[in-house]
Each structure stands twice: as structure tokens, then as C-alpha cells.
């Protein structure tokens, strides 16, 4: 066998290795889904959604968890979107290249890389203790908002940057002010991409567990939160709680809870992908 044929064979082999590696992730994902569904699907019922937590696995439900997740989701939307999009607009449209913009940029990149549990420590000290918001929904939403803010800033800036400069110039040349240009032209044009980034960030927030454990969201909460200052729990925390129990029944509950959580996360990601694809197909500058 000559040298060239050998190289070609190795090349082919590597191709199959590539396919194998690409499938490993998918195989794992499939294994995970199959396992979770076979364990937990039978547990899904109306009762499971409407029952409070309980010491008996077969009586326990996720009512407090999913309502808490809904609370957190809503409040995080209210806090994180204006903050993140606002900061991104400022950085992209109002600052000129220089020392300050450099510092802000490096800072945001660093924030995006800080482990989520550190945000939990921050929240515990600032929101729960110093501001006396307690172990409340509001504290949780504030922590998660700070946590996903860098993600929203980065993706929003990319979306703003993708709007052609010619559109901005056309608007400015007509006498529109900078904000009018941003509001009437730049934001609508960038909207689908901004939205995609926001949804992905929210999907991250929905699945976060560690920072909320830090502020005590694991404590037994036998009621549904009625105001932002009430104590709460969320789906991932409820799942974690069940995983840590020794009884087999709770493992089944955990699997069922995971089905619900993954359902939410996958739906959000799916929406984001669809919006991105549609935006790509629609506007051709």
C-alpha cells in the first residue's frame, strides 16, 4: 500500500470518527430523554401539577414549583430586558471607542464568565440581607436578572450591529434625532435577533438552580407565592430537592419534574430558533 492510499484511508477513517463524535452528544441527549420519560412520564397527571409538596412522594406535586418558576420568569422579564437592552443600546450607539468603552466591554465579558453560584452569594448578601428583601421571589428575580444581563447585552449588541449603517444614516439625514433613529429604525430592524437572544437568556434563567439555593429557595414552601415578597421555590430546585431524597418515589417525581422543565426549555429554544430563521429569510438588505 503506497503512502497516498494510506493517507486517503486515514482521511476516510477520520471522517467516520467525526460522525461518531458528532453523534455522541445526540446519543447522550437521547439516552437522557428516554430515561427521564420512562421513569417520569407515568407520574405526569393533573394532580402532579396541582398538588403541594409532601413528605409522601405519590402525593407530592409541583404546584408551588411551577407557579414560582412563572413568577421568576415574569419578574426577570420585567427587570432583565430593559436593563440588558438599555445597556446594549448605550454601549453600541452612544459610546465612542476609547478607554471607557473598553473597560465596559471587558467587564461584561468577565461578568458572563462568572460562575452562577457567585451571583447567588452576591444576591444573598445584597438583596436578601442588606436590602432586606428576604428569601423572596423578588430577590430571586433580581439575581437571575443580573446573571443573564451580560448574555442579553452581548446578543443585543450583535443584533444592533447587524443593522446596516445606511439605514441609520438615512434616518439621521432626515433630521431624526439619535433616539428617534434608534427607536423607529434600528430597534425594529434588530428586533427578531434581539428577541432570540432574550429568549435564550430567559431559558437559561429558568433552568438555574445554584444561585437560588444560595438564597434559601430550597426551604419547604407549602403555599403559592402571591406577591413578589413571598417566599418561593422553582422547578429546578424542587427537582434537586427530590433527587437528594433517598426514597425511589422521589426519583420518579424528579424525572417527571424534569420532563416539565425540559419541555419549557426546549419550547423556548425552539421559538428562538424559529424567530432567527424567519428573520434571516425575511430581510435581505
Amino acid at each position, binding site marked *: 500500500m503506497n503512502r497516498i492510499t494510506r493517507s486517503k484511508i486515514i482521511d476516510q477513517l477520520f471522517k467516520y470518527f467525526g460522525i461518531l463524535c458528532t453523534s455522541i452528544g445526540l446519543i447522550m441527549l437521547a439516552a437522557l430523554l428516554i430515561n427521564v420519560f420512562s421513569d417520569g412520564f407515568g407520574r405526569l397527571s393533573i394532580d402532579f401539577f396541582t398538588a403541594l409538596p409532601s413528605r409522601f412522594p405519590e402525593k407530592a406535586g409541583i404546584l408551588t414549583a411551577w407557579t414560582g418558576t412563572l413568577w421568576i420568569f415574569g419578574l426577570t422579564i420585567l427587570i432583565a430586558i430593559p436593563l440588558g437592552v438599555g445597556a446594549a443600546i448605550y454601549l453600541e450607539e452612544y459610546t465612542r471607542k476609547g478607554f471607557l468603552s473598553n473597560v465596559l466591554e471587558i467587564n461584561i465579558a468577565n461578568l458572563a464568565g462568572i460562575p452562577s453560584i457567585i451571583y447567588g452569594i452576591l444576591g444573598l448578601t445584597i438583596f436578601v440581607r442588606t436590602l432586606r428583601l428576604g428569601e423572596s421571589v423578588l430577590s430571586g428575580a433580581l439575581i437571575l436578572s443580573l446573571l443573564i444581563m451580560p448574555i442579553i447585552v452581548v446578543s443585543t449588541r450583535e443584533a444592533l450591529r447587524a443593522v446596516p449603517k445606511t439605514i441609520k444614516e438615512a434616518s*439621521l*439625514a*432626515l433630521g431624526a434625532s439619535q433616539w428617534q433613529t434608534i427607536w423607529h429604525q434600528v430597534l425594529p430592524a434588530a428586533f427578531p435577533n434581539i428577541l432570540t437572544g432574550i429568549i435564550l437568556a430567559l431559558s437559561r434563567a429558568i433552568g438555574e438552580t445554584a444561585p437560588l439555593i444560595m438564597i434559601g429557595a430550597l426551604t419547604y414552601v407549602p403555599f403559592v407565592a402571591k406577591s413578589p415578597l413571598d417566599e418561593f421555590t422553582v422547578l429546578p430546585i424542587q427537582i434537586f430537592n427530590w433527587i437528594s431524597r433517598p426514597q425511589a418515589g422521589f426519583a420518579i417525581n424528579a424525572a417527571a419534574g424534569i420532563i416539565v422543565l425540559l419541555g419549557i426549555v426546549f419550547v423556548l429554544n425552539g421559538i428562538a430558533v424559529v424567530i432567527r430563521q424567519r428573520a434571516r429569510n425575511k430581510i435581505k438588505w
Partner: protein
Amino acid sequence: MTQIHSDTSQKEAQSKVKLSARNIFVDYGAEHVLKDVSIDIPEKTVTALIGPSGCGKSTFLRLFNRMNDHLEGFQRKGEILIDGEDIYHDQKHLEELRETVGMVFQKPNPFPKSIYENVAYGLRIRGVKDKKRLDQVVEESLIKAALFDEVKDHLKKNALSLSGGQQQRLCLARSLAVDPSILLMDEPASALDPISTAKIEELVEELKKKHTILIVTHNLQQARRVSDQTAFLYFGELVEYGNTEQVFTQPKEEQTAHYIGGRFG
């Protein structure tokens, strides 16, 4: 460099000076883009800015509506006067300035909105809500830009669905809607086919009855066809400025003759 004045015909000599540049220097960072340019432009005429790429024509044009202000590293010395007033004097007048000075860009750049909303945009950002007035201005502007007949039945259609030539006329209509007295055109036909180009040129001829027009062009025949005065810029300096016929037939400067000759020859 005030020694270079328009070698004007009698009619133009009588008309009033609308735009002036006085000893204009422009730098981008370390790069000198314009060097001591002075020029007087009479009202309701068409002035063509010609010169090789990178000679500073676009930068010069964009001084008159302060579009360079948004660019990184832009620095200017000297005065730009409109009706005798220095437009760089006061930051606050930026929006009003651009109401007086319209601009059409090199590449058609309609907003990704309906045809109607494109034309109405200038009024809307000035707070005009009256539907009748908007309808009227949109129609008039589209008529002035010779686009109305082609689009009157689908004003709600997205502007991006128009052809390149139509888009450029839409951009013109969009500028005209706020009734500017001055129109800046930055190679408005460079991205268009010959038929669309001819339409734009006809429009320029028509529009100068009411507007003072500055047009940057690469196309020397076009400059000759549409303009009353021609200014030749070379490496940031104003080499020659005068009556278009004179500049093209009897240029005073050797560089002008070279450029024009080279292009024609």
C-alpha cells in the same frame, strides 16, 4: 483659497449665494481628507463635485448636513455657511439643519417598512399625526420623485420589494417630503441601470427649480449633463471650480484637463 470663484454667467452672478465653505480642513485621525477648501454655491443651481476616488468629495458633501459628525475620529476646521449662517456654530440645530438639507445616498437605503411609511417618516418624527396631511405629502413627494404612478396602488407594500431604481426615487421622495431647500446627492445613480439613471438625471433638472443641489458623481458625462457648476477635487484640495461648460471645455488647471481628458480619452 477664496481666489477660486465661480466663473459665472450673468444670470448666476445675480442669484444669491446659498452655500459656502470657508477654509475647510477635515482630518480623520491622522489622515488629512480636505485641505483648505473654499467655495460659494448659488441658490437653485446644480453643482457637481468630481474627482478620483478618495479625493474627499463625499466627505465634503457630508459636511453640509453634518453627517460626518457621527464618524469616528472626524475633525473639522473652517466654516460651512447656509444662507450666511455657520451650521457648525451650534450643536442644537442639528435636527433643524437636516430638515433644510436633504440627502440621497450612494446605495438606495429605504427603511424596511412600507412605501408610505418611508415617505411619511420625516413628518412622523416631527410629530405630524394628521392622516390627511400625511396622505397629501406622501402623494406630492412621490409625484415629485416621479414614482407615484408606479406605486400608487400598493403604498402599503414593503419598500424593499421595489427595484433598485424605484428604491432610489423613493429615497428621493422621502427627502423631499420634509421640503428641504438643499439636496445633497452622493453618487445617487452609481448603483443604477442606465434607464433609472436617466430618470434621476431628469429629476435633478426638474428639482433645481426649487432646490439647491449638490451632486457627487464619478460619471463625468453625468456631471456635464446635469450641473451648472463643477468643482474638481484632487487629494483633498479644490483644484478648480467654475461654470460646467467652461470646466469641461476650457479647464484652467492642468490637473483638471488631465482628469477630464483621461476620462474621456
